[in-house]
C-alpha cells in the first residue's frame, strides 16, 4: 500500500471507478484541462478523454440538472462543485429533483449521481470558500451524505458513492486535503456507506466528529486526562445509529463537534437521537462544539470561529466534571 494524501486518494478513486465502469463520467468546472482547482480530477481528461471528463459551462444548477438527464441516458455522473459555497445554486435541483425523482418513477429509475466537493474552513481563503453546508444536504430526503476524514476513507467512500444506486453527496475536508496522509489500498476499494469508524477507543467520554473535526477531536483526546473515545461518523446519512448509541452507552458522556453553524447543524440531529434513544445512558448533558450562528468570517479571525482543540477540551472537561 502507498501513502497518499486525501486529495490524491480522491483522484485515485476516480481513476479506478472510471476505469472499472464505462458509464461513469465526471463533469464540473475546470475538472478537465486544469484537472480541478485542487487537482482532484488531474489526469482524467488525458486518460478517459473529453467525453468522460467534461469541463462544463460555469453553472452549478446546470451541472446537477444535466446530471439528472445523463442518468436517464444511462450514465453515472460524478459532479464536482468547485467549492462548498458555490454548490448553493444546485440546491434547487437537489431538493426538487435529485432527491425525489426515483420516488416519482415508483422506483422504476435510479439516479446514481455523485456530487463531490471540497468543504470546510481554516484554509485562509477569501469569503465563501469555507462553508460546511452538510445540513442542507442531510436534511434533503432521497440523498445520502458521506464525509471522509482519512485518505483511505476518501477513496473508499467515494467509490461507494459512485457505485451506489442512489444520489450521494461526498463532502471532502479541504483543510486536510494535503496534510492528511495515510495508506490507501490500491485498485478497487470500497468503504460501505452507513458505517462509522471508531478512531480511538475510550471509556469515559465520547467525541463524535466527521471530516476535519476528527483530527481536532483526536488532538483533544490527546490532551484530556480521561479515557476518550473518538467516533468518526464517515456517513451522515444514513447514520450509523448503532455505533453512536453503543459508544454513548459505554461512556455515558458525549461531546459533538461540527464546523457548521450550530442551529440545525448535524450535531443537533445527533443530540436528538441521543435524547430520544440514550437518555438512560447519559451521565450528563449532550454538549455541542460548533461553528457559531454567524456568517463564516474572514480568515484573519477564522481560528476563533472554528471549533478548536481548546473548545473541545473545555466542553469535555465540563462534561467530565458534571455532577
Amino acid at each position, binding site marked *: 500500500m502507498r501513502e497518499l494524501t486525501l486529495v490524491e486518494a480522491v483522484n485515485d478513486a476516480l481513476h479506478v471507478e472510471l476505469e472499472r465502469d464505462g458509464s461513469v463520467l465526471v463533469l464540473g468546472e475546470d475538472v478537465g484541462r486544469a484537472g480541478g482547482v485542487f487537482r482532484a480530477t488531474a489526469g482524467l481528461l488525458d486518460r478517459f478523454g473529453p467525453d468522460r471528463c467534461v469541463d462544463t459551462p460555469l453553472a452549478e444548477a446546470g451541472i446537477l440538472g444535466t446530471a439528472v*438527464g445523463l442518468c*436517464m441516458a444511462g450514465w453515472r455522473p460524478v459532479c464536482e462543485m468547485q467549492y462548498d459555497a458555490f454548490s448553493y445554486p444546485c440546491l*434547487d435541483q437537489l431538493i426538487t429533483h435529485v432527491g425525489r425523482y426515483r420516488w416519482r*418513477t415508483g422506483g422504476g429509475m435510479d439516479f446514481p449521481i455523485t456530487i463531490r466537493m471540497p468543504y470546510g474552513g481554516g484554509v485562509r481563503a477569501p469569503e465563501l470558500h469555507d462553508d460546511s453546508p452538510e445540513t442542507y444536504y442531510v436534511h434533503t430526503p432521497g440523498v445520502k451524505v458521506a464525509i471522509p476524514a482519512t485518505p483511505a476513507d476518501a477513496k473508499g467512500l467515494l467509490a461507494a458513492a459512485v457505485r451506489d444506486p442512489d444520489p450521494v453527496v461526498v463532502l471532502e475536508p479541504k483543510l486536510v486535503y494535503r496534510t492528511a496522509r495515510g495508506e490507501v489500498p490500491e485498485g478497487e476499494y470500497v468503504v460501505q456507506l452507513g458505517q462509522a469508524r471508531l478512531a480511538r477507543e475510550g471509556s469515559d467520554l465520547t467525541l463524535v466528529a466527521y471530516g476535519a473535526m476528527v483530527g481536532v477531536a483526536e488532538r483533544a483526546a490527546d490532551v484530556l486526562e480521561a479515557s476518550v473515545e473518538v467516533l468518526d461518523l464517515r456517513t451522515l446519512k444514513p447514520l450509523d445509529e448503532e455505533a453512536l448509541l453503543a459508544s454513548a452507552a459505554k461512556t455515558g458522556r458525549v461531546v459533538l463537534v461540527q464546523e457548521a453553524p450550530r442551529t440545525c447543524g448535524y450535531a443537533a440531529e445527533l443530540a436528538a437521537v441521543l435524547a430520544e434513544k440514550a437518555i438512560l445512558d447519559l451521565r450528563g448533558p449532550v454538549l455541542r462544539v460548533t461553528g457559531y450562528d454567524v456568517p463564516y468570517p474572514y480568515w484573519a479571525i477564522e481560528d476563533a470561529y472554528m471549533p478548536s482543540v481548546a473548545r473541545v477540551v473545555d466542553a469535555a472537561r465540563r462534561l467530565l466534571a458534571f455532577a
Partner: protein
Amino acid sequence: MAQVLSGGLRRVIGDGEGVPDGRVDGLDDADLLDLYRSLVLLRTYDERSVVYHRQGRIGTYAIFWNHEAMQVGSAHALADEDWIFPSYRESAIGLLRGIPASTLLSWWRGHPAGWWNPADYNVASICVPIATHVPHAAGLAWGKRLRGESAVAITYFGDGATSEGAFHEGANFAAVMRAPLILFCNNNGWAISTPLAAQTRAETLADKAVGYGMPGVRVDGGDVLAVFEATREAVERARAGEGPTFVEAVSYRAAPHATADDPRAYIDLARVEEEKRRECVGRYEGYLRRLGLLSDEEREEIRSGAAALMREGIARAEAEPAPDPSILFEHALASPPPSFAQDLAELRRILGRTEAGGAASPRPSGPEGAGPEGSV
C-alpha cells in the same frame, strides 16, 4: 410548406377565406387523420378533466385547452426513441406515447398509480417547478449523443419559464454540448396573471436563441401543421448533430391557468373570446373538411372513441385502492436505511389503532384545505 407571417410566424392552415391552405410534405392523408385523432384525444382529456375536477374526482388541474396543436404537432414530429420532457401544461402528452389515461388521471388525483417509468415510454415525469426540467432534457440529449445513440429530446415550457435561471443554464448546456434538443416554448402570453410584457423586453422569445448560438423559429401555435413542420426541421437538425433549436409557438391562454385560477381579474376577455373562436382543434377540423378528409361520421367515431377512453380511464383511476402507507418509504431510495422499516412499523401500529390506511378525500380541499391549493 409553411408561409411566414409577419413577426416571422409560420403558418400552414388557411382561414377558409382569403388565406389559402398549405400542405406539409411527407404527410399523407392517414397522417393527417392521425394528427386529428391526437388532437381530439387531448381535447377530450382536457375537457373531461375539468369536469372531473368540478365533480371532485381529481384535484387541482392545469387546463391545456387550445394548447393541443402545440403538443400534438410537435410530438408527432418525433420518433418513438425520442424523449419528451413535459411540464404540468403537457401533463397528458404521454397519452400519445401510450401512457394510460388512468395513470395520468391518477397523477392528478395525487395517487401513486400516477407513476410511470420514464424509460417505458421515453416520457419524463411531469415537471411541476418551472423550467427545472430543461437541464434534464439537455442532459438526456447530450447523454444519448455521447453514447452514439440517435435519439433526440424535446422539452416543453412556457413563456414565463424563460425568465428562470434553470431555463438559461439548460439552454446554454444544450448549445455548448451540441445536444440534440428541441426547446419548445409554449408562448400563451401569460404566466398565471403575468403578461408577456412583464416577463421580458425581448421582441420575441425566439430572439433568446441568439444568445445561445442556436436557431430560433416562431410558429403559429394554433396551427398543428406549422408546429409539426417546424419541429420536424428542428428534429432533423438535432439528429444530424447540429445541436439544439428553440421553437417559439405563439398562442393565447383562452382558459384559466388551472382550475384554482380565476383569470377575470387580469385577462383581456375580448381577446379570450376571439381566441376561443379560432381555437386550434376547430381550425384543423376546418382544414380537413376543406380537403374532404373528415366526414361527420369519422369525427363522431373519433370523438366517441376518445370519450370512451376517458370513461375507462377515470373508472380505473377511481378503482385504485387507497395507497398503502408503505408507499411512503418504498421507492425513496434504492437501498434504504433501516430507519425506514422502523418508521413504517410504528406508523402501521398507530394507524392500526386508529383507522385503516391513509386514504385522503379526493376533494382537493380537505376539511382544513386552503383552497386554491395548487398554482401547479
